[in-house]
């Protein structure tokens, strides 16, 4: 039984190792984007902290966005995730989008997901 387990583990490692090693730029971008959004939504940190941390994150995000946009590797057999990422430019490439619009990173993202001031003002509190 243990032999079978060892063999299957080796086999699985061999099968999945290329995928593990081949973490592409879009994955890294997604990870960094998630971190930035986490910072935006984090209520436990001060405004100053958030600002300085977001600045650093923005720099990394900008680099990763540029790497992804200019990467030629993703042209060959693009994954579903990659195709969708380029379809929704404003949501994927947040730094670029915010610079285009001349708005902050958080505002660009919130607006893009539909959380605008107008939308929020038009809602009303009610009990069901």
């Amino acid at each position: 039984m243990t032999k079978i387990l060892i063999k299957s583990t080796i086999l699985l490692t061999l099968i999945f190792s290329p995928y593990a090693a081949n973490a592409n730029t879009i994955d890294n971008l997604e990870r960094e984007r998630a971190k930035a959004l986490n910072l935006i939504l984090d209520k436990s940190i001060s405004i100053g902290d958030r600002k300085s941390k977001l600045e650093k994150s923005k720099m990394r995000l900008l680099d990763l966005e540029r790497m992804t946009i200019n990467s030629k590797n993703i042209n060959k057999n693009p994954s579903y995730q990659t195709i969708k990422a380029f379809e929704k430019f404003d949501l994927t490439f947040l730094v670029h989008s915010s610079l285009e619009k001349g708005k902050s990173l958080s505002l660009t993202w919130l607006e893009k997901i539909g959380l605008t001031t107008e939308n929020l003002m038009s809602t009303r509190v009610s009990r069901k």
Partner: protein
Amino acid sequence: MKNSNIKLFLIILSVSFYSANSLAQNNVNGWKPQIVEKMYVLPPKHLNKVLNNDFNKSLLAINLQNTDNKIKNRIEKISELNSLLPGSSKEEGLEIQHQIIINKRDYIKDMNDLLIMKKEKLNTKKIFFKKIEKKFKGNSLKNKTTSNFLNNKSSAIKRSQKLDFKILENTSYNLSKRSKYFKQYQINKDAVKKLKLAIEKHPMSNENILYKDPLNKVEAINNYVHEIDTEIAVLEMKEQMINYMAKIVALDAMSLAEKVAFDDENNNKVVPTNFNDPVNVISVFTN
């Protein structure tokens, strides 16, 4: 004279071996184009030039040149021997004819090698162009399926390029915060921009419509393949010619062999002595 008979027999035998079947079975050193994949983007005209240069460096090209020189020497020798024939004696004449046949046989052998090498060169070229054509067709098919993605990506690149200057000007991206990639990106982008401008200004860039239009490129490659096919067909006709030449040489050799044998019979005609007749053996007893 017996030796010359054997020699002629061997000539006939070796010449007859250069029949249609044996023509295609010669082994010659090959040529494998050593062209990097990056060269595939070149326009077909330039690609053909690069391919020819690559061939000139190959072992096949050297062998082709050597065989060509050998053929020239053989023809010179045959002409020289032919010129000696009218003033020669009967014995010399036979020897000269013998030498002519040997040289003709060697000429056919070398010419056969040359044709095979030429055919190999053309076939290699054809395979190379076919490979490129296949690649282009494959790429265009692939492009159709991923065209939406590529459109999105190219628009993303354009949007990003428009923002490059804005990012550089933006005060929030001050020098101390700039990453190594950020700095390198700017340097490389500037360099690429300069190179693109140089390409646009290059006189050949405007002349080369083939470079810009992949459909034209495929058509041009098809034309090259057609040309190669024509050359191969011509070579095959030449091979047939060589076959007929070989037959003529074989017939010449046979006729010479018969001539030599006939002369031998005439020269060595010995009247058989009948020792059973006592008149014929008188000298044995008297001397």
